[in-house]
């Protein structure tokens, strides 16, 4: 069997070298000639006469079909424009197990050179990531930092969640105006309920979906006034049993007990679109990535999007950039050729010519310093409007805060599950919050070991 593997290895090497030499010779020249000015920024133009062939491996979470497609398109376009660079795409996993998959890749020495990072802290602490090359910093409007260093080139801005609603359902229930406060919103729920439709569908089976609503309440009651709440909780100077948190969770419990579709605990995030378009539910609280899914489920379905205000009428959304994006692996950083290739790719990716269609496909928020706009539909336009509105405060979900404000990674899933039990068991909010304190502290302690 070893003989076979050696043979395999030899033949693969042979093939690769043949392909590379073929590309390196003719392909490159013709590529440069036919390169219209619209395609590609400075980097490929400045390539030396005989650019050395470089191969870099890339990986990203392929859970969302739109994103997967869009990134693949960009990679193909880049390779066409830079034929000396081969990008080996090794992505293959859903977002659920992305961390798992990266860990396995690393365990066998296949950690990608250019990787979409979502758990930056974990990998930086393990020494697997290199800092983002300085030349790329200027591309972005805001760059998240970890321990005062930049590790991520954010693919898209953190997309805000909002209420996606069926226009027909609203019309049928006699709702003519969008709510300006949370109490008005509850009023709308009552009307919908009276009309016989499930007001809200929640994909409770998927924990990340739970996060949308939970964080709406947390952001509007806690983080809005105190963005450093997490660090204080770690230091034990605040508690889950404080009035603001209890208020948040009480509101959450009430909303879920009364206005959420009865099957929420076994509904997956991927069913929520179907629930909306088949008229089984009127509203869905989620983000812009759903817009494409809903349109695909039923192109004739009419729906709208708005940010959910809180009691005093102000709007706070989770729009701050998270510690995520393209990162450079520490291994790849040791190879100067690879670094150049990666810089080249990043520049290409965020160039408006590429970035604009990318954002259009994934319905994403631009993170670049240069203005990028794209053709979009009514709902997405609303999202962009919200993000551009400077009077709207931006905040973050509990588990996305970083630095001093990072929470123990294992806490989030446990907390969301606890909150599910809170509703199901009709539990006492204060009591559950006390349990949260205990669990949080023990998680912190466990991580310090």
């Amino acid at each position, binding site marked *: 069997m070893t003989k076979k593997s050696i043979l395999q290895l030899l033949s693969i090497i042979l093939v690769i070298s043949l392909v590379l030499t073929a590309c390196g010779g003719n392909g490159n020249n013709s590529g440069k000639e036919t390169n219209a000015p619209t395609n590609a920024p400075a980097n490929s133009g400045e390539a030396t006469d005989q650019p050395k062939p470089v191969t870099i491996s890339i990986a990203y979470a392929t859970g969302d079909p739109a994103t997967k497609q869009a990134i693949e398109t960009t990679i193909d376009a880049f390779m066409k424009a830079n034929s000396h660079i081969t990008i080996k795409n090794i992505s293959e996993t859903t977002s659920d*197990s992305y*961390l*798992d998959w*990266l*860990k396995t890749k*690393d*365990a066998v020495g296949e950690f990608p050179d250019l990787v979409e990072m979502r*758990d930056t802290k*974990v*990998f930086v*602490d*393990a*020494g*697997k990531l290199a800092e983002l090359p300085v030349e790329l910093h200027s591309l972005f409007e805001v760059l998240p930092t970890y321990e005062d260093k930049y590790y991520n080139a954010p693919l898209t801005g953190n997309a805000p969640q909002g209420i996606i609603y069926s226009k027909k359902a609203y019309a049928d229930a006699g709702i003519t105006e969008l709510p300006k406060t949370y109490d008005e919103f509850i009023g709308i729920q009552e009307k919908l309920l009276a009309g016989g439709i499930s007001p809200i569908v929640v994909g*409770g*089976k*998927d*924990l990340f979906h739970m996060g949308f609503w939970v964080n709406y309440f947390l952001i509007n009651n806690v983080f809005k006034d105190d963005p450093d709440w997490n660090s204080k909780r770690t230091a034990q100077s605040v508690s889950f049993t404080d009035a603001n948190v209890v208020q948040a969770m009480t509101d959450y419990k009430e909303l879920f007990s009364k206005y959420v*579709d*009865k*099957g*929420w*605990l*076994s*509904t997956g995030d991927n*069913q929520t679109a*179907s*629930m909306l378009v088949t008229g*089984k539910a009127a509203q869905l609280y989620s983000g812009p990535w759903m817009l494409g899914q809903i349109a695909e489920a039923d192109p004739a379905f009419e729906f709208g999007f708005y940010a959910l205000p809180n009691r005093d009428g102000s709007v706070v959304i989770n729009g701050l950039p998270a510690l995520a994006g393209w990162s450079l692996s520490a291994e790849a950083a040791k190879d100067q050729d690879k670094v150049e290739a990666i810089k080249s790719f990043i520049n290409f990716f965020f160039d408006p010519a590429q970035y604009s269609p990318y954002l259009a496909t994934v319905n994403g928020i631009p993170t670049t310093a240069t203005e990028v706009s794209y053709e979009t539909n009514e709902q997405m336009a609303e999202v962009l409007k919200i993000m551009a509105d400077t009077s709207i405060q931006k905040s973050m979900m509990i588990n996305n805060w970083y630095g001093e404000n990072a929470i123990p*990674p*294992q806490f989030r*899933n*446990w907390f969301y*599950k*606890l909150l*599910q*039990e809170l509703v*199901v*068991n009709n539990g006492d909010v204060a009591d559950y919050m006390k349990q949260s304190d205990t669990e949080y502290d*023990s998680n912190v302690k*466990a991580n310090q*070991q």
Partner: protein
Amino acid sequence: MLREEEKVMEATATGRKKKKWWMNYAIWFIFPAFVLYSLFVMVPTFSSIYLSFTSWDGISDNIRYIGLNNFKEIWESPRVHNALKNTIIVAIALVLLENVVALALAILVDQVRWFRNLFRSIFYFPVLMSGIIMGFIWMIILNYNFGVINQLLDMVGLSALKADWLGNPDYALLSIILSTVWKASGYYMIIYLAGLQGIPQELLEAANIDGAGKWKQFRHITFPLLAGATTVCVMLSMINSLKLFDQIAVMTNGGPGFATETLTYIIYKVAFGEGRQGFGTALAIVLFIMIMIISLIQIRLLRKREVQM
């Protein structure tokens, strides 16, 4: 070959040399299996025992020894206790139900007059499916809004009985148990069938003549004679039930809340999935010890019963 022939002659001549000759071949016969097994099962297992005493997160090169802290945490964590409770409930329920259903099906198939083989195949077929696939199918059947069960209830006017079979904590564990019984019983049915077919007809006929009814026949003749089959089925179903994973991962994700979390679930999803490899390995070892102890107890009890029979 020549050397071996010499040895045969020597062996038959001298009793003592015979033993040594046997051992020689045994080594070579066992060698391949031994090497593969040791290399790919035991060696990594021992490596991981060390891991259970560390706080390794699965990625960093830095592995910190923390002594018994993982085990202490397991001892104290309410979530682990809950998972343990669920694991045991599921195991006992599955062993009971699977065996009762399997035996019942075996009796039916044994007694049914027409299409025997077809029925046997139908009952056995679910065993052949992957747990993942079975999980998907049942998840859709049990879906609250679009699923078959609820739709059927609507159709017969029993809408009041509609429930969120996988999302309601009162029903979630039950749904998993029942669907697993559906999947697994066929296998044990085959074993019980073979056992049934090994029971001499004369015994039953004699009892019949003596005036014993069907139930008495079953209790005093059939069931005791199935002791061997029962031992095997109970042992296997116990081990498999303790290791149940695929269905839970697909159908409920351990939810709602923590209602269907079992040890295997938290080992994979929580510990490994949340960057606590050392802790996860410790959990896996606890599970392993549990399986071993339960199996040993079972062997003793069941073998004793077999002997009595």
